[in-house]
Structure formats: C-alpha cells, structure tokens
C-alpha cells in the first residue's frame, strides 16, 4: 500500500471502460455510473483494488462499464457473491450495484442477511420501481396502482416495499437516499458510504425513461432531506416510516456496529496436525 502522500491521482474517466452502455438514452443509470467513477476517483483507489459485483438487470450492467474488477453474476445473487469476495479478500473495496427487482424481489433474502451480517461492502441500488431489463413489469417498489405492466394490468394492489426501512430493521449500518438528478451529491455520498465501515445501503432514484417515462419528473419532485442523519435506529425508523421517499441527498442513518470481519487467522496449525487427530 502506498502512503497517502504518494497516492496517485485519478480522474473519474480512469474508472470507465470503453464499452458503450446498452441503456436507453436518458436512463438514470448513466448518472449513477458517473457518480460511482467520480467517487472512486475522489477516494483515489487503484482500480485493481476495487471490485464491483452485480446481478441481472439494466442497472446490473454497471461492472462492465467500469475499469475495475467486475463480476456480473445471476439475478438476485450479487450480495452473497460480494460477501464471499470481501470476506476472502478484505483488502479489496467491494461495491454492489443493481436494481430494485434484483435486490428486493428475487434478492430479498440476501438483502436482509447482508444488512444483518454487516460485511464492509457498499450496496448501490438504482430504484426505478420497475423491471427495466424485462421490459416493464412491476417491482417491489412499484406503487400499487401503476397499471403500466401487462402482467398486472390493474396494478399490483400491493403496498410497495420500503427498502430503507427494511434495511434499517435488518441492521444496515449506513443508509442514504440520493437522486440521479444530482450526481455531485450522489458521488459525495457514495464516498461516505464506502468509507463507512460495515454494510452501506444507498438507494438511488434512477428513472427508467422507457417504461416509466413519468419518472423524469422526479428531478422536480425530490428535495434535499431537511434533517441530518441520526445514529439512533429507532428514531431513524420513525422518520423513514413516515417519509414519502423523495427526501434525498443526505445520509439518513449511520450506525456504529463493527463490521463482520472474521480473520483468516495465521495460526501455526498445519494440516498435519489435523491429520494427527485421526491416527490411532
């Protein structure tokens, strides 16, 4: 490791690959990619010491658009991949990027347990309240009366999933909400999320211009959260449960639980000692 003084300077573009995203023009995810690369530059992390893990979805395409190590896994399972990677390689900075469907529908169980396990990874969820990749079905965060999907033509009739409340209830150690319409703040908060030990959850309101064109109005609806973050989980819960989902640009909760970080103990034990136990 180089000392701070020697730290190489990086620009956001140093974290971008040459690959052209498959995203629709205007998709919120472009900004998220920018904010992530900007945050990495700010942290001046050597690209080879960073890994971005994802599942499947439009938003889950991010790894290949970066120039760090990437892992593009299967739908809903990015968090356990990242968990294994970070536990095996605590020296790496591990980010997870994905969507509301990937993270809260098929990946819901891993979300719960990642929050609870509190491994030092940063989870950035591009929430567009829709399954973009499969062409527009309701996701867990979709409003119950959205009739835009052929699968639920009369709306889902189901209360939307509250990712931040559930994340808090499950033990996430850092919670923030940002808007893709404010990439500067987003980058700043991603920096903070990465720096904060333990599991950090960043919800990004990232419009799907194709299947939820009305979300382009989000840029006008969102407001900077008025209060600063609390470290009191019960207070944070009350706030989040009464929040309308459009308070952005601030950290909402910061916990101080130590991260789960079992050590690879460099004990002197050898395989021969293990074998000795079987000898008669």
């Amino acid at each position, binding site marked *: 490791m180089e000392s701070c003084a020697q730290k190489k300077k990086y620009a956001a573009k140093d974290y971008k690959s040459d690959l052209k995203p498959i995203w629709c023009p205007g998709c919120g995810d472009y900004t998220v990619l920018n904010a992530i690369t900007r945050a990495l530059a700010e942290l001046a992390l050597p690209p*080879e010491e960073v890994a971005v893990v994802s599942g499947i979805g439009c938003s889950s395409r991010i790894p290949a658009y970066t120039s760090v190590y990437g892992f593009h896994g299967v739908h809903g399972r990015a968090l356990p991949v990242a968990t294994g990677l970070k536990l095996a*390689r605590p020296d790496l900075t591990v980010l997870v990027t994905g969507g509301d469907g990937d993270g809260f529908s098929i990946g819901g169980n891993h979300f719960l347990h990642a929050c609870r396990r509190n491994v030092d990874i940063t989870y950035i969820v591009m929430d567009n309240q829709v399954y973009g990749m499969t062409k527009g079905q309701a996701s867990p965060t979709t409003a119950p009366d959205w009739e835009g999907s052929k699968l639920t033509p009369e709306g889902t009739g189901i209360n939307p999933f509250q990712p931040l409340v559930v994340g808090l209830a499950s033990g996430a150690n850092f919670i923030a909400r940002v808007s893709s319409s404010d990439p500067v703040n987003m980058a700043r908060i991603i920096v903070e999320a990465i720096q904060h030990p333990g599991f950090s959850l960043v919800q990004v309101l990232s419009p799907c211009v194709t299947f939820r064109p009305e979300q382009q109005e989000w840029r006008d609806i969102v407001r900077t959260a008025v209060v600063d973050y609390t470290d009191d989980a019960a207070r944070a819960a009350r706030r989040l449960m009464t929040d309308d989902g459009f308070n952005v640009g601030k950290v909402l909760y910061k916990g101080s639980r130590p991260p789960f970080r079992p050590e690879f103990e460099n004990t002197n034990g050898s395989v021969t000692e293990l074998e000795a136990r079987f000898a008669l």
Partner: protein
Amino acid sequence: MTINSVSLVIAGSGGAGVVTAGSLLLDAAAQAGWYALMSRSSGPQIRGGEAAAMLRFATEPIMSHDDSFHLLMAIDWDNIGRFSAEIPLVAESLIVGDPAHGAAPAALLAGRPRQAALAMSEIAGRIENGRPNMVALGAIAGLIGLPPEAMQAVVEKNLGRKGQAAIDASMAAFHAGFAAAADLPATPKLPTVATSVAAATEPRWSITGNEATGLGVIRGGVRFVAAYPITPATEVLEWLAPSLAKVGGMLVQAEDELASINQIIGASYGGVPAMTATSGPGLSLMIESLGLAVAAEVPLVVVDVMRVGPSTGIATKSEQSDLNIAVYGLHGDAPHIVVAANSVPDCLFTTQWAVHLAEAMQAPALVLTDQAMGQARAIVPKPAELAFIGQRLTASAPAVEGERYKRYAMTASGVSPMAIPGTPGLTHTADGLEHNEFGTPSSQASDHHAQMDKRSRKLTQFNYGDHWADIEDSEVGAGDTAIITWGSSTGPAREALQRFSAAGGRARLISLRLIAPVQPEKMAEALAGIKRAVVVEQSHSGQFYRMLRAFYELPAQTVSLHHGGPLAFGPKQILDQLNQLNAGSA
C-alpha cells in the same frame, strides 16, 4: 481370498447408549489391531428413540458391510422392528436379548436366527453404577474374541476425566458380560492382531467419510467454505469450521444454499479456493449458480452427500440417486466436473483431487458421496499423502504486451490465465452472460460456439491419469466379465469380486471415480475383451446404467442391477448376478 470378518449390531432405545457402545467397541477394535466399519441407523425422533449401530470387524481393510449379521445384541426391543430390513439375519445369526424386555419382535425373526438370552440389566444392576450397555459390550467381546485389554484402554481414555471409580464400574460390567459370553451360543471369532495400537503392524486411522471429505478439501487447498446445514452433510461442515480456523481458512454460515454457492463463487473469484457441502435439496437450489460458475469459469467444489430422494425424501438414509442432477442438472450446455468417492477413505482422495481439478480447469467440480459412507466410521490404513494441490493458472500481465487482457482468451487447452482481483493492469468483468474473449457480453453465434468449445475442451483434454476409475481384476485375471459400478456400491462389488475370484471366477471391477467428463477411450480400454457386464448402483431407475449407455459402448450382454435406497447391496446379491451372468453364457 474372502474376508475373515465378523458383523454385529447393537440396538436399543435412545437412552440405552447404543451409539456410545458402538463407538467404544470400534475404538477397542482399533486397539486390537483390527479394521472396522461402523454405520448407524436411528428412528425419526430428533433425540432419543431407537437406534442401531452396525459394525463389522476384520483383520484386513473392509469397505462394505456383509450380507447378514452374525450377531444382534439388543439392549431392549423398542421399535427395533423398524430396522429389520437393515439388519438381515440368517439361520447362523444369533440374537441376544435381555429377558427383562420380553421377546424379540417377529420382524427380526424372518431369517430364523438363533436366539439367546442375556440378563444385561440384571447383571448390570448387581454392579455399582453398572450399565447394561457395558455388559452387552463385554458379551460381544467374549463372543467375537476381542481382548478385554483393548476395551480397558478405551474405557480409560474415554472415562478418564470421570475418575477411576467410573472406569472400574464400566469395566466390571464389561467383565461380567465377557464372562457371561461363555454361556452363549458361539459366533465367529476374529484372531487378535494386537492388544494395543502401538503393537499393531500398520499405521491406521479412525475416520468418518464426512471427516475425510473435510480433510480432503483442506489438503487440496480450500480456505473458504460457506455452509448451510443439511443432513447428512452437516458433519462435513462442522468438522471444517474449527479445522479451517487452524490452517488459516474460514467457514461462514450462509442464509441459504443460494447464498452459500454464491459466497464461494465470490471467494474463489477473489482467488481463494472455496467449497461447500450439501445434500440433494440444497444441491437443487445451487443449480442456477453452478451454471454461473461454468459460464464465468470460477473454480469451486460442491460436495453432495446423497440421501434418499426425491424431495425431502429420507434425510438420514443413503441412496445413489443424485447422479442425474449432478451430471445433467444444469440448464443449457454447461460442462463441469463430477467425481465420486467410492469408500470412506476415498472421500479424502476424491475431494482433494476435486479441488485440484476445479482449480486446474477453472470449473465447478461436484463431488458425490452419500450418507452411508459419509456417516460411517472406519478403521483404515493411513491414507497416502497426495500431490494434488489446487493450483490455478493465473495471469500477472497481458499475454501480449500492451494488449487488453482477455479473461476468456482462446487457448489450446481451453484454460485461460485468470487475473485475480488486485492484479494491476488486468481488470475485467467476469460474466455469466455469453461473452467474447474479453468477457464482454455477446449474442453472436460465433462467440457462443467458441466459448462453448473452450469450456468443454478444457475438461475433455485434461489428463486425468489413472484416477478416472479404480480397476481391479480377479487374481487369475479379468476374464470376460465386468462389474461396473460407482460410489458406495463399490464396497460390496469389490467383495463380490473377491468371492467370485476365490471360487475360481475371473472378472474385472471398474469403479468410476470420474463421472463427468466421460472417458470413452479409457473405458474402451478397460472393457477390452469384456463380453458381459453387470452395472451395480443404488438407484430406483438405474441412473448410472442409463448414463453409461448414453456415453459408452457397453458389452452386448450388460445387465443393470439396481434398487433404490436405503438398503445397500450385499456382496452376495452382486455375486449371484455375476454367477448368473456367467452361467447364462456358459
């Protein structure tokens, strides 16, 4: 030469200390220089309830139970009838029961075994702190020729911290039983080899299949294990947790099998050899992500300790019926490695080899063991040191200076140098989507075909040496008859071959360790001159036989000998089939 062995069962209800008794007996047999195999069976109750310890002792290594038991020592009869199918008794067998508990249940008497009474509880009652199970052990020792010194050493070691009085009480009960054995009808006796471990001729281990599996992966280099408990694989994981900690590794308990398989994918992508162990239901849940490991070329090992299926099936009993899912279970064309252990000690060899194969070929390796070998404890010759260490072809710089790194580069072997995160200049994205050489998603037919070829080539071109199968001939040569088998059916098959051979028959045993990729050339060589074969496996539908038909040229006269779990084949069932095959063609 056929094996000189004695087989016995200790049975009783949970409180009766059946399992403890069995373990003590096994340890004492170890002292006596014997080889041994011990399996257990128990009722559906979580704790307590009826149980049976099935033991076989011999003066040479054994890998299988016998066709029937010489002795059933029943401390009481509670629900023991449930086990009757698992305790074959014949006219020469002897049932010893305690008259205080009444008569033996009819279910045990179908084979018309001899019967005798031993007032275990009464005898125990006469000794302060005497317990019936120690009386039973004494009687067994007397019957089968186990020297009391051997038991003395074991009891001292086991009860040491309880003090001399406890040791004395136990041994007093044991000796009372030993003396009483003189009045019981005779059973076969084994010659004493030694009266202490030190005096025994050959270094031996006492180990279960599940422990051997754990040791195998550690020897192979695994240092990250993700775990979700499931019978009968839990002991693999429970053995690994503290053991890994001792050698600088770690075990993490996951929220489910979807998480455990993906955690090890992450750890292995990070460069740390990784594995998990599960059983059928858990393997089912790992299927999608095993495919990811195939496509993204992430080495890993998954051990499936098979139990009776389908669905939740019978969690505590054995079957060889996960062959299909292991070989064919992945969606798409997804070439991967499947190996199978064929005995308790072979769990060590095969899992260590699996780590080596997975790492060398950057592919997932499934290891099939089963409840029977996993939960059996055996006294075996000390396993050999093995050279298989997981070693991955890594990249530290692009193949061509200044060129962008190709994670999935086309190579002759099909294996591409893998850049481990942290390596400068070689960042890339590993992908489960079809991709080109760089890893960039591609839907081009040409990329798909090239990557498919590469992923299958790396497996088929690998040099598996002689380990693909264990091949054994009768003393006088192979003749023209073969037994083809795999996994824990190998034990009884081997013994059938020995008996066949002892009776002057000639045959060859081929026990496949490498299930996939298939080895048609090696098999053709192994089958050269063979005209008849019996395929032996413990599955209801004959999965192994069907797989052999699909990929190999079998002798024209090939019969499938198969049945579903939980009963293992006895050597005689296989021998009969061998004789029939040969008679038919004589």
